[in-house]
């Protein structure tokens, strides 16, 4: 009898064995919460800079500091995402090469020496980079001039204009009022009212160019790759362009809408995307390559890299 009982127990045990992990999970509920969804999520191109400055402002408010420009040279402990030391400078020179804390310049800042900023760099005035610098993230309240090689790991947020006259790697996200790129620059996404690589008037500012203009009205979607660019005359497309393949646009071409590619986008020598005063986008799953004079009104986004060679 005990043998039979043992067999029955063994049988039940072996029958339930595959379900044992499930039963334990049902009992202990280690993973019962719904998959998290951010109910407040919206698409904000200035998300990184805005969130950081919000944290910083809140941290200063908590310390009853209302006017940041009147702060004296000091290291203060602020509660950003966590408690951390932040260096506050006025217009003094920064002597350290390797800076391990976040740094706030309360006025204009000129970087004459090379620095590596391991944490965020904030300038509540204009910023001028005259020597090679490496940054984690950069916030500038005024204009920002890049006149020496600059490398940013995460984001750049400039409330004024961003003028790049030297090689720059601007990291993941760039936000500025206007972006002028005059040397080789890379990033993953950039948002500005106007992003251009030259002051030369392009098709949007100089529509009466020589040759017959080809006007196309309406949006279109193509399954493969597409090349647009007519050597005989300018092309104006009043609509959006969606493609499953590579998009190559070259010459006097003005696309007033968005350009979207499941592969790569190449914009060369005179292309304009968007209309002044409106936000339009060039979005690619692959690389976006920009060469020569090109202008974009709005947003550039690549899952891989945007490379600009003016």
């Amino acid at each position, binding site marked *: 009898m005990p043998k039979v009982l043992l067999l029955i127990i063994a049988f039940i045990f072996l029958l339930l064995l595959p379900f044992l992990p499930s039963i334990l999970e049902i009992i202990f509920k280690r993973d019962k919460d719904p*998959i998290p969804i951010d109910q407040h999520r919206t698409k904000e191109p200035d998300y990184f800079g805005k969130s950081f400055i919000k944290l910083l402002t809140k941290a200063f408010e908590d310390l009853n500091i209302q006017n940041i420009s009147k702060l004296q040279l000091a290291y203060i402990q602020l509660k950003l995402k966590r408690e951390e030391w932040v260096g506050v400078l006025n217009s003094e020179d920064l002597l350290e090469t390797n800076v391990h804390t976040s740094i706030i310049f309360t006025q204009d800042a000129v970087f004459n020496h090379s620095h590596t900023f391991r944490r965020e760099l904030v300038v509540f005035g204009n910023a001028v980079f005259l020597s090679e610098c490496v940054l984690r993230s950069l916030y500038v309240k005024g204009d920002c001039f890049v006149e020496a090689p600059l490398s940013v790991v995460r984001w750049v947020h400039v409330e004024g204009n961003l003028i790049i006259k030297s090689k720059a790697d601007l990291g993941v996200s760039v936000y500025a009022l206007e972006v002028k790129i005059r040397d080789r620059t890379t990033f993953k996404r950039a948002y500005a009212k106007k992003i251009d690589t030259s002051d030369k008037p392009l098709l949007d500012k100089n529509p009466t160019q020589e040759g017959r203009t080809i006007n196309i009205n309406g949006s279109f979607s193509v399954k493969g790759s597409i090349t647009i660019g007519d050597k005989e005359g300018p092309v104006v497309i009043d609509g959006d362009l969606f493609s499953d393949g590579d998009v190559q646009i070259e010459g006097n071409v003005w696309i007033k809408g968005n350009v979207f590619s499941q592969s790569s986008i190449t914009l060369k020598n005179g292309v304009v995307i968007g209309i002044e005063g409106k936000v*339009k986008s060039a*979005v690619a799953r692959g690389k976006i390559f920009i060469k020569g004079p090109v202008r974009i009104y709005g947003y550039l986004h690549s899952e891989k890299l945007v490379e600009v060679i003016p």
Partner: protein
Amino acid sequence: MGVLIFLLKAYMILLMFILLMYLIRHYFFTLNRAFGKQRLYYQDVLDEDLPTVSVLVPMHNEEKVARYILDLLVEADYPKEKLEIIPINDHSTDRTKEILDEYAQKYPFIKPLHRYGDLPRGKQNGLNDALKIAKGEVIIVYDADYLPPKGQIRTLAVAFKDPQVGAVMGRVVPINAGKNLLTRLLDIERTGGYQVDQQARYNLGLIPQYGGTVGGFRKDIVIKLGGFDAKILAEDTELTYKLYLNGYKVAYANIAECYEEAPEDWNVRARQLRRWSRGHNQVMFKYLLPTLLSKKLSFWQKVDGLLLLMIYLQPFLISLGLIDSLILFFLGEMQIIGSYLFLLFIFAHNSFGNFAPFFEIGTALVLDGVKERVFLLPLMFFEFIFNIIYASLGFIDALIDLITKRTVIWQKTERFRNA
């Protein structure tokens, strides 16, 4: 007798072939989602010229949930001058009407449509009536128990900048996942269905399905195609096929995640599943041949389209297969094909085939970063049996609908949220 045995054996071979097709599909989708090229959705397109949108929310006795969804839609970041919200009050007998009128008074862009009297009940009928008054170029639909995030209308609507897109579908996530065993199983089932199945179809340019909620469509196209068929309960599946057969596509937005309330009671789930199966099979009867003969679909879209159409027929075929195998067993005719190769196939199917849907769900859970839930996978076996029973009943309902041409009546899914 010999003919009967031959037919029974032939059916077993046919069933094996069909199951093999689904097996390959499961593996192919899972491997594509895990290692393949992921197709980009349109969420990164920033554009100030967004289309006008009408958000339709079908409601029948939704007093428990109406305020939640309306509050969230009011908070949406979509430009209000381009937005209208039309809650469709479909013969409600509870306080739904009063709640909707209260919101309409407060917010001018909320314009309830009250349907009473002789108007036929049902989601498809409500949507048809709402399309007559909706002013938006794009229609976005949410079921009443859904909780749309602030930026979701924009995420869904921006897809319509692409002229090829006829409809868009977001991802459904149960908010009450941890409530009980049923909701936990439904949660992981949904994860597999959206995170892997829908995304893989979108990646591969096949047929992602418009699911009737957390999604939208172009109003002018749907009106041009005759609106929704009042006799079909799965208006979402019908629209998917209508669009593809007319040269449009469905975009899948994995990022457009929205909470829903999953059924917490097995009886409620049984009714829901039976309705889904009935509606889906009605679509199958109507669109099987057009899908096969379509000149707008590629070869692989046809294969995927047919497998998707037959998805709720499959449980019925499996049920018949079980009965068939029992008959063959008692007749002593289990040797269907005298080949070791076939035996090898049976072994392989038992090892890998039965594992395929679990592999798909498991991969989805890993992608979502909820790895502990993988331990629940063995319990999916019981849900599988449950699904076979009620999906088969749904198929029989659809078959009777087809033969008798009877009027279909919409069965609403009961809500569980505490007011």
